[in-house]
């Protein structure tokens, strides 16, 4: 793989040591190309959350390799010095609940990651407004999160995940609180954004409504990933 995207090779994560050690991830291999949206599916306790935390550089894996774009970020140990900056600049997050900052308006919620990266407020807000327009929520730019509907909040959260143009976005059950129509709309947005910004998106989900829309799916069971071809159904199905 060249350019953006993410590649995981032989990733493992062990909690604890000795007799009480638990191997949450035993063998994870994934490749997500730029502009691609893949599903990550697995039952409770299969290791989905642990994998998401490893991919998000929130916890350190025990072994394996992670390559983000052209940069090896983990190879038996972290290869980047500033993990916080890695999360800020290279990884976007979209959560099950939008988790918008309640005391910032929509524009500043989206503009916050670039502001944290040192981008001037005006420029950060300009980028945020452009994304809000792309996601069709520009009319709520001055609203507070509590004034938005669930779907609007999720779109704002997607905008926040995209605003720093990260090579990869990790979406954790992004459609769980939404009805079918809105869930499919969110997946369509993710696909559109992935193509538009050449971002690799991994969507962790249980949602039966959206699983058929993925062209590729990774199943995870007992800490091991298996690749499967998806149906790739149209979003209005």
């Amino acid at each position: 793989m060249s350019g953006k995207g993410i590649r995981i090779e032989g990733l493992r994560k062990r909690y604890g040591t000795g007799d009480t050690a638990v191997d949450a991830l035993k063998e994870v291999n994934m490749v997500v190309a730029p502009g691609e949206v893949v599903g990550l599916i697995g039952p409770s306790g299969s290791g989905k959350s642990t994998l998401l935390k490893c991919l998000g550089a929130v916890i350190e894996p025990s072994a394996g390799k992670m390559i983000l774009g052209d940069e090896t970020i983990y190879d038996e140990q972290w290869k980047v010095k500033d993990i916080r900056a890695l999360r800020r600049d290279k990884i976007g997050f979209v959560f099950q609940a939008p988790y918008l900052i309640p005391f910032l308006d929509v524009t500043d919620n989206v503009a916050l990651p670039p502001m944290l990266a040192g981008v001037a407020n005006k420029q950060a807000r300009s980028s945020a407004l452009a994304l809000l327009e792309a996601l069709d929520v520009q009319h709520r730019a001055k609203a507070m999160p509590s004034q938005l509907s669930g779907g609007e909040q999720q779109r704002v959260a997607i905008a926040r995940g995209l605003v720093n143009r990260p090579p990869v976005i990790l979406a954790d059950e992004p459609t769980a609180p939404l009805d079918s129509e809105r869930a499919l709309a969110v997946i369509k947005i993710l696909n559109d954004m992935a193509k538009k910004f050449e971002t690799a998106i991994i969507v962790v989900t249980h949602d039966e409504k959206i699983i058929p829309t993925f062209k590729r799916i990774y199943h995870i069971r007992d800490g091991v990933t298996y690749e499967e071809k998806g149906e790739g159904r149209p979003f209005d199905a």
Partner: protein
Amino acid sequence: MISLAGRDIMHSWGKFVFTGFGLGLLIGVTLIMAGVYRGMVDDAKVLLDNSSADLWVVQKNTLGPYAESSSIYDDEWRGIQSMPGVAQTANVTYLTMQVRHGDRDVRSMISGIAAGQPGLPGWPPYLIEGRQITRGHYEAVADQATGFKIGDSLQIRRNKYTVVGLTRRMVSSNGDPMVFIPLKDAQEAQFLKDNDAILEQRRRNQQSPEFSQPGNPGLLEALNRSQNNNPYVNSVLVQIKKGYSAKEVAKSIEKWKRLTVYTREDMEEILIGKLIATSSKQIGMFLVILAVVSAAIVAFIIYTLTLGKIREIAVLKLIGTRNRTIAGMILQQAIALGVIGFVVGKISATFGAPTFPKYVLLEPMDSVAGFFAVVIICVLSSVIAIRAALKVDPAEAVGG
């Protein structure tokens, strides 16, 4: 970078304003307590200033006339007046009592002043209304805090006095307003017994074989007469001539008159260091308690506000917010709470002080010191909340 603390405060301003208001009342009480102490010190200095004295001559080995009782003969002033360096002397008596005014009592310090004219030690140095005492008996000059008006009649012991003048900020070291009356009246008021007690004393003298001697009939009469007079005053106030050292003159009076003499510095030490020492310790203790309570309130509020934002803090960390940005946000909120509290406290103290039953002197420098103390307390109080915030794992934002 936008101010996260400012945005959070604006978003939940009601919580901050109400908490700041509560904290402000506490800070207001603290400022008033400090003002009460300053007022006590000022009262003590005002008492010394208003006496117009450079030296206080009192009973030997006493801390009189304000901190301890002192009694010296009322003719001692003649000898002192003739000593080198002495410009003016005057007898004075002090007596704190309830003065009757109509159907109410006013706690006052009665000061007996020697006959003379304004400028004599012990006399009220200025009046705001009326005139000074000109008659030898039954006239009074009262501080306006007593509530008396010109022409009012007040009762001290059995005698009634007419208020002929009013003065301002003439108070005892306890803050009681002063009433000036002629010295002879004050001596009588200080030592006057009621008629039954006088009769009883005469009966006892008559029955005593020591005083009732058949061969010396004048002795009993002389004794009874002497017991009806009060030849004592509490102190002799001395003004010294220009060019003389107060300490040297004091030493000279002590040596020749066998009395104790205090200079202005000695008196300040006695009044501030001894007379109000216990009160100042009590106020100091209250200030410490109030500071601890304020710190506990700020710490609790900031900690509670922080715990209410755990998920947001986890998200902020996950998207790359530095620990120092999060710590700064909490710190700024704590300081903002303190500033709101201080403003409310300062306003409430300023408007509340005049209604306080004791003189409250709000010094600008105390307010400045109070402001910095509040800021420091808020900074220290935010440490617990900052520690809690820094412990938040960004993984908490990720499901599972």
